[in-house]
């Protein structure tokens, strides 16, 4: 994906797709209000402190917890794999597809699989892929990436989905949301019964018990992980929790932060492949622990807390910038505040040069993050790193600005000049303010500066 692009993409989204702004604003405000209510029902601040501390602790001993999880999983008959990067993960998947002769895959919603570009790989291997989360299925039909961590299709209005389903699935032009869901279900039911492999992500993995934990609202992940003969769980190495009892709070925090629910409708705790006396479940369970840049984030003094993220999407919902454009403008798998922080760390620091400024530093995200990631501080830290690479004009502007502001006499003089020049130029007082002023018509300076008023009115008074 392009290093540059947020600016242009955001402008395009605003100019050409005003309906996105409307759909996203409505959906995120709704989510955000639900979160606020659900946080209000519990001792949210204490939970957040505890969750943040638990995550911090886990990350500080991640290697130990990963080995513990591997041991438990293996003991129950799961096969554990380690992938250093996307290529590595793709190699493992390719091998598994070949090993089991898979022609069809059903997938539960997984941001990590987006990161690893799993669908593209499977298609190249001639394997049919079905996204089974309804939102994810919609954007798969539309040929788009997800635009939100939790609600992949929240940027789409009902009309657009109707038209899409009509074209792809032959539903009537005035189909109700229920009819649309039913049409998708008919296709997916067939897929569940015939797929040779189910691929999921993981919300958490418990080290103590080697349990893969999946949270959802539709029941599709449950089918994805139990109907096909083979289940592959793709797990970011940061998803570890030390003990099973930690789930009590994390499951509630996740659901409350994401959608305002007390807990997800379906919570699956997977401990291994089907045992001889069990009626269902896959014959083979593969857990792929994926790094893909995470260890370098972990090693970054200013950014490591970002790995505490439980992908609840609350920071996206609270973000007034995200609301205007939706997630596609960011041009990356992860959008919104957490996307700005994670993407340059996972992929390429230079990505921060544009993404880092897709934020007004309003700090609304910090208020809602259930694990207290200091998102605004981290976004700013990326800016500090980017500033050295900023265009020469920008650096020069800030240098002369600082020079002006540390010389009171010149500062005073420049204020005078501003007032003199205003009628002539429309007064972009600072070079950096010029572009801003353009969106407002002329910025008019006060007829007298405060300094002048002070001298006339207050001095000696």
């Amino acid at each position, binding site marked *: 994906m392009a290093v540059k692009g*947020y*600016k242009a993409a*955001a*402008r395009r989204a*605003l*100019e050409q797709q005003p309906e996105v*702004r409307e759909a996203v*604003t409505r959906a995120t405000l709704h989510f955000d209000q639900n979160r606020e209510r659900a946080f209000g029902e519990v001792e949210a601040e204490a939970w957040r402190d505890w969750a943040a501390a638990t995550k911090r602790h886990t990350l500080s001993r991640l290697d130990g917890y990963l080995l513990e999880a591997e041991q438990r999983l293996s003991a129950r008959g799961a096969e554990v794999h380690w992938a250093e990067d996307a290529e590595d993960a793709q190699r493992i998947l390719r091998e598994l597809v070949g090993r089991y002769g898979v022609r069809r895959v059903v997938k539960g919603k997984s941001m990590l699989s987006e990161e690893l570009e799993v669908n593209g790989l499977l298609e190249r291997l001639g394997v049919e892929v079905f996204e089974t989360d309804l939102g994810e299925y919609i954007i798969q039909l539309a040929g788009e990436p997800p635009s939100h961590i939790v609600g992949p299709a929240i940027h789409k209005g009902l009309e657009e989905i109707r038209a899409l389903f009509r074209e792809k699935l032959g539903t009537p032009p005035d189909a109700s949301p229920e009819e649309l869901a039913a049409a998708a279900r008919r296709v997916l039911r067939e897929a569940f019964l015939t797929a040779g492999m189910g691929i999921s992500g993981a919300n958490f993995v418990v080290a103590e018990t080697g349990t893969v934990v999946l949270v959802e609202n539709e029941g599709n992940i449950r089918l994805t992980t139990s109907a096909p003969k083979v289940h592959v769980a793709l797990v970011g190495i940061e998803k570890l929790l030390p003990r099973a009892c930690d789930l009590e709070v994390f499951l509630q925090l996740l659901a409350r932060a994401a959608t305002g629910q007390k807990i997800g409708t379906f919570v699956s705790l997977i401990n291994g492949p089907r045992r001889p006396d069990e009626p269902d479940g896959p014959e083979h369970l593969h857990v792929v622990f994926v790094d893909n840049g995470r260890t370098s984030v972990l090693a970054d003094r200013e950014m490591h807390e970002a790995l505490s993220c439980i992908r609840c999407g609350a920071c996206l919902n609270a973000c*007034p*910038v995200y*609301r*205007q*454009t939706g997630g596609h403008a960011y041009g990356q798998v992860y959008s919104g505040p957490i996307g700005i922080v994670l993407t340059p760390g996972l992929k390429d620091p230079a990505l921060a040069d544009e993404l880092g*400024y*897709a934020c*007004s*530093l*309003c*700090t*609304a995200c*910090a*208020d809602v993050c259930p694990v207290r990631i200091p998102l605004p501080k981290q976004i*700013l830290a*990326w*800016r*500090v790193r*980017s*500033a050295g690479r*900023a265009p020469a004009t*920008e*650096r020069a502007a*800030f*240098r002369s*600005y*600082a020079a002006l*502001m*540390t010389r*009171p006499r010149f*500062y005073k003089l420049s*204020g005078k000049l*501003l007032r003199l020049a205003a009628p002539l130029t429309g007064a972009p007082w*600072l070079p*950096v303010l*010029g*572009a*801003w002023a353009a*969106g*407002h*018509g002329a910025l008019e*300076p*006060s*007829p*007298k*500066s*405060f*300094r002048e*008023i*002070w001298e006339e*009115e*207050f001095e000696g008074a």
Partner: protein
Amino acid sequence: MRVCFFVTCLADQFFAEAAADAVRLLRALGAEVRFPRAQTCCGQPAYNAGHWDEARKMAAHTQEVFEGCDYVVLPSGSCTTMLRAYSPRLFEGDRPRYEAALDLAGRSYELVEFLVKVLNAESVGRGLAGRRVAYHHGCHVSRELGVKEEPLRLLEAAGAEVVPWEADQECCGFGGVFAVKNAPVSLAMADRKLDTVPEVDVLTSADGACLLHLAGRAKQRGLGVPVRHVASLLWEAHRGG
């Protein structure tokens, strides 16, 4: 009590009358106000843009200017946040400067916060009776300084009706360098605020930068709602009784 007024560069040049109203009000309430002439800008534009070397120079200058003041009062929540919360971060590797920054942080107050918390004002006067007001919670004032109720209390004590506003807590879209680098998004955010403003006589805030942004946008769109800094409204409240 030596109260030093830090007008802030934006207020000095772009809403000087509101800043003067702040001083008039402080004096009327019995504070002895001084104006250290060497003051310039707190450095926040450079800080937010990531140009920390420049921000450091300005922050150091500000430290020197306000040495020896018991209190530093600003008609801007955003610049107060720079002194209170951000400036110390700039000097984490520089012990004397860091301590000076913390010291200044402890003495710095946003205007309304100062009126309520230090001068213990419950009311500044009743002169806003019958006025319908929409209050914009600037992000820094409300989230970083935790000043949320104070301005509403003073406005209501002055007789104004603070009308509920769906987007009153949302960012106006200014964000300094953000408005420059991503102007279309910034303006869309201002529009969201302006589109949801209820029927009121005046739109106000404790943050002049937000108001400048909103007022500029409102003007360009031909919207009629008057925009005034809370310092001016409170001064009016005082003068009107």
